């Protein structure tokens, strides 16, 4: 069989998933790339049609058409909840990306990043350098100094993303006023579930404070948080980026690690990782680890989801206006809409305002802003405009990619708004309520 035939075969194994698409077109207006470009090749229906053409042997997976349009998809999966036929677009996209990447190597930044994140030393070095650039202020300086055109555009955006991962100090100056005391707190719950936290790669390297806040908030709600040494990468980046082999390798490690921990739930505070881990049995379909993967997948909870299930304790007032934006991998991939709002509801004084078009992708999508500076920039600019229109001090979103994308957009505009994970805000509220021991007050 020719190379093309073999790759077509890889997609053909999923032909029964392509079949339900009846070409009705109801997905078109939900797709951020179609809405902006107007080309059906950049719509979910069009991309599915291209996948179908590869299966039928009418299209070479190494062709420009296949590579460009499959690559240009954000992977936001906003098409899934509007599809009457229930086409599993996300799963098909991962296979299509893998097929496209094997037919023809993807662009250099994607290749490099997947390579780096595929190994532990690679991740440590990359994120270490990133944290250094951020902590020394070099990232911020670079983002300000570099011009926003041509070859500099991507580098400038990347540095702005890095700089935006700094802790936002804005809440420090917002204090509760008279009459806004913390409510009487009933005895803290003690019999919560036993949970392990995925500390992750980007999250651990650049957003350790979010991991810390997650652990504190869970403990304050009665969870027994089991320490998990040696945080690994869950493989989401690779699964979304067209390297299923590495994704599977990483997933197998995580499945073993977390099953050995023998916990009720694996808690994830990065929506992209949670979405992938909840679909580990899909990723490892046909693998000896498949049933273990399924067992683990069923235990995975997004931190917002678990807190909402537990009914989070109410903390002390933090009077502020919070804009909420839904991460695609939380809303569309995991179907979680209300949970982050429930988390923020436990913060008295926080006035929540939903961002207009909060259901639409921010353009983060991994490193889309770097690989697709023009289109990613447009999508990001629209999101930043909607965020700013809420006139809030802070925007809360539960995924590191979205935090960086929105954060970078705000930073490049010189906008004062801060970006936080919802649990960070709850953490501030809890600290003010005195829920934490002093020595743990980190």
């Amino acid at each position, binding site marked *: 069989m020719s190379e093309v035939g073999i790759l077509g075969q890889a997609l053909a194994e999923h032909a029964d998933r392509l079949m339900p698409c*009846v070409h009705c077109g109801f997905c*078109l207006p939900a797709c951020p790339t179609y809405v902006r470009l107007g080309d059906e090749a950049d719509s979910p229906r069009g991309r599915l049609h*291209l996948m179908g053409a590869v299966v039928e042997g009418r299209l070479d997976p190494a062709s420009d058409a296949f590579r460009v349009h499959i690559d240009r998809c954000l992977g936001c999966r906003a098409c899934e909840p509007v599809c009457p036929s229930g086409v599993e677009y996300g799963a098909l996209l991962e296979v299509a990306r893998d097929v496209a990447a094997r037919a023809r190597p993807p662009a250099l930044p994607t290749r490099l990043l997947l390579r780096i994140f595929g190994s532990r030393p690679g991740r440590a070095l990359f994120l270490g350098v990133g944290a250094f650039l951020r902590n020394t202020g070099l990232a911020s300086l670079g983002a300000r100094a570099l011009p926003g055109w041509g070859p500099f555009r991507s580098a400038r955006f990347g540095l702005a993303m890095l700089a935006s991962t700094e802790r936002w100090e804005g809440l420090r100056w917002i204090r509760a006023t008279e009459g806004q005391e913390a409510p009487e707190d009933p005895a803290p719950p003690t019999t919560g579930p036993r949970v392990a936290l995925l500390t992750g790669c980007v999250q651990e390297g650049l957003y350790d404070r979010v991991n810390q806040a997650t652990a504190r908030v869970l403990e304050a709600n009665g969870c027994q948080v089991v320490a998990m040494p040696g945080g690994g990468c869950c493989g989401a980046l690779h699964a979304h980026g067209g390297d299923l082999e590495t994704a599977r390798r990483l997933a197998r490690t995580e499945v073993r690690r977390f099953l050995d921990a023998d916990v009720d739930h694996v808690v994830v505070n990065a929506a992209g990782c949670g979405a992938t881990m909840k679909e580990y049995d899909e990723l490892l379909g046909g693998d000896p680890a498949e049933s273990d993967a399924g067992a683990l997948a069923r235990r995975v909870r997004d931190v917002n989801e678990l807190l909402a299930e537990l009914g989070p304790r109410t903390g002390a007032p933090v009077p502020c206006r919070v804009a909420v934006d839904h991460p695609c991998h939380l809303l569309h991939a995991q179907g979680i809409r209300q949970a982050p709002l429930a988390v923020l509801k436990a913060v008295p004084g926080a006035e929540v305002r939903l961002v207009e078009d909060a259901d639409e992708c921010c353009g983060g999508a991994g490193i889309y802003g770097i690989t697709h500076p023009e289109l990613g920039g447009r999508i990001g600019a629209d999101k930043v405009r909607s965020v700013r229109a809420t006139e809030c001090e802070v925007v809360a979103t539960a995924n590191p990619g979205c935090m960086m994308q929105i954060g970078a957009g705000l930073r490049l505009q010189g906008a004062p708004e801060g970006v936080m994970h919802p649990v960070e805000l709850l953490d501030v509220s809890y600290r003010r309520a005195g829920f934490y021991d002093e020595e743990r007050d980190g």
Partner: protein
Amino acid sequence: MGPDHVVADPARLLVYESDGLTQYRQAPLAVVLPGTTDELVEVVRAVHGEGIPVVPRGAGTGLSGGALPVEGSVVVGTARLNRILALDPENRLARVQPGVVNSRLGVEARRHGLHYAPDPSSQSACTLGGNVAENSGGPHCLKYGVTSRYISGLTVVLGGGAVVELGGAARDPATGLDLVGLFVGSEGCFGIATEIEVRLLPLPGGVRTLLGIFASVEDAARAVTGIVAQGLLPAALEIMDGASIRAVEASVYAAGYPTDAGAALVVEFDGTDAGLDEDVARAVACCREAGATDVQHTDDEGQRTRLWQGRKKAFGAMGRIAPDLLVQDATVPRTRLPEVLEEIMAIGARYDLHVANVFHAGDGNLHPKILFDRSDADELARVERASREMMQVCVDAGGTITGEHGVGVDKQKYMRLVHGEEELAAMSAVGGAFDPRGLFNPGKVLPEPEPA
């Protein structure tokens, strides 16, 4: 226009080879996606200048192949022409570009207490330009009428690239011949509307939605006859059969229709709040009389929305059952619905085809959905034969071959079932007045001339 908006790579063109009707595939020579009216006019002039046909395309959701490319044509897509140019609440008018999605205009109008009445089931995706071309209907056209009633003016580019303004609310009633009326429903064969002026209506003061569950489609159809005989004027009267209900209930649009039902009847009343409850009570009585196993009604917005989502997404939900789907479209006099349905199901059984039904029962508009697999040539042939027989049955009952989806390529072959040669010649002559060289969407709607 940049390379992103002019597509000539044969691989990229594959995605344009079908619209919502997938039995036909034909890739165009090129696709052009103009971003301004001026660009659109330039493109038509240039392409027609070379004697090359133009096929207009909105969102490609049509079910009769209206946007199917013809061989050697250039597709002009309107997706980027998606601006609402003006919304004038005082005069209840809006002026839009052709690529504006139907439901987006609805959302904008709602901010002013208004709505745009035609609501095709694809309204979340289909464009107003496409609605004008197909003279689209929808569940609520029972009371409100179809698209033509709401188009007050058009700016159109005609064959060769001439731009003319037709109608306009300020000139209403039209002086001279009603060219707007001619253009609406011309299925892309006369030209492309570059600007569309639509009439908006005030939102009704109250809405009540009733759901009747029946053991059979025949019982539901009897209830419809009863409701109309009572002199009631519902905004919508819709029936879904058991197969359609089960497909919808398995989808993300599950609305709580009971999956063991033979048929569901949705009746909606709207208007001044006073009197609506009385209408509902009378309709409930009709349902019970016709043997309804359960009747419920609601004025809750959320529940209503769910019921309607379920009904409107029934077509797409069929993808769960079979890889391909032909949504047929025909009308019959309302009173003959039960017998025609029975015959349609018998035709399906005779050709060993799976047929599901949803229909706008109030205006006798049937949508039998034939499920098939395009890779099975024999089955494809049976679909073709069964479709023809279904059309014949509807015509024999005093109906016609399309209620709202248009003729396109799918119904051309049935045109002679309802139109004589003189009538067809008149249609052709009218088309020639707008597009003398026949370069807009050629080979659609009108059948090939009879061999002498």
